[in-house]
């Protein structure tokens, strides 16, 4: 009986340790580049899941230019091109539990932002110069 309890305890410890280790391996970060406009009322069907969030803005039409998902470890960077020869760079600063601290930078500008994302949360970066929206969301480990 004691042996059974000991094995049970050890198995639980190993599983929990492995789960914690696996959780620390990477964080799923989804990046979408959206071109917004005050003309027309078309909303890209692929943006249906964030349509309500985009409704907070005063643009009337939205077109998805690019969508990528990245599995980032701490210190790793994801980069996507933006209209106007710019680029968005997202760096995972720190991941703890289901929280991810990220640094967002619009290259060739001085625009930077740091944020903490949790699974299900979305950060919208609106670059008003080019009517570009970068939607960044945490997708969990």
């Amino acid at each position, binding site marked *: 009986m004691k042996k059974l309890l000991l094995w049970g305890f050890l198995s639980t410890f190993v599983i929990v340790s492995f789960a914690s280790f696996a959780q620390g391996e990477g964080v799923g970060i989804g990046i979408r580049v959206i071109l917004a406009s005050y003309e027309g009322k078309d909303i890209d069907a692929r943006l249906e899941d964030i349509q309500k*969030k985009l*409704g*907070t*803005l*005063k643009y009337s039409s939205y077109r998805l230019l690019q969508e990528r998902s990245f599995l980032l470890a701490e210190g790793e960077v994801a980069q996507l091109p933006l209209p106007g020869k710019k680029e968005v760079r997202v760096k995972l600063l720190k991941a703890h539990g289901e929280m991810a*601290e990220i640094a967002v930078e*619009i290259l060739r*500008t*001085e*625009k*930077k*932002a*740091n*944020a*903490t*994302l*949790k*699974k*299900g*949360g*979305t*950060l*919208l*970066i*609106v*670059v*008003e*110069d080019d009517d570009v929206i970068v939607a960044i969301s*945490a997708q969990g480990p």
Partner: protein
Amino acid sequence: MPDCKHIASMLEPYVDGELRPEERASVAGHVKGCRRCQRELEELNALRGHLRGAVEAGVVDAPLAGIWEGMAERLEAPTVMERIWWAGKSLLYPLRPLKVLAWGAALAVLFLFTYPRVTPPPTPRVVVESVESEGSVMIFQGEDELAIVWFFEEEERKEGMMR
């Protein structure tokens, strides 16, 4: 032969049958030859007879039927609440105080560990920590799942960006 004073002190136990056989024989022998002690013994017997008669008469005349009805009322089937109470009590009966204490402590520990998990403090799913820009910036922090950072081209266009 024992004197009357000594025999008088033994008369009451004699009537009650509490004397040893030799004492009883001694008292009986003295009483036969002593008129005074004989009379005293008769008076004592008469008194005992009166008392016994009074007690027996009282018992016979007592309302036994009423007493029985009262007992019968108490012996009636218990109510539902009484049954539940007794069932609970019989279940708890085997538990010794130490076991009850141990169970209480275990439940308290379980409650302490689970309570914070059941009611976690609400935290937003996205929080903007800091922003840098050469131009104007506006931050909208949603209640839960949304945060927006606006990097504006010109100061004048800031107004009217939100619905």
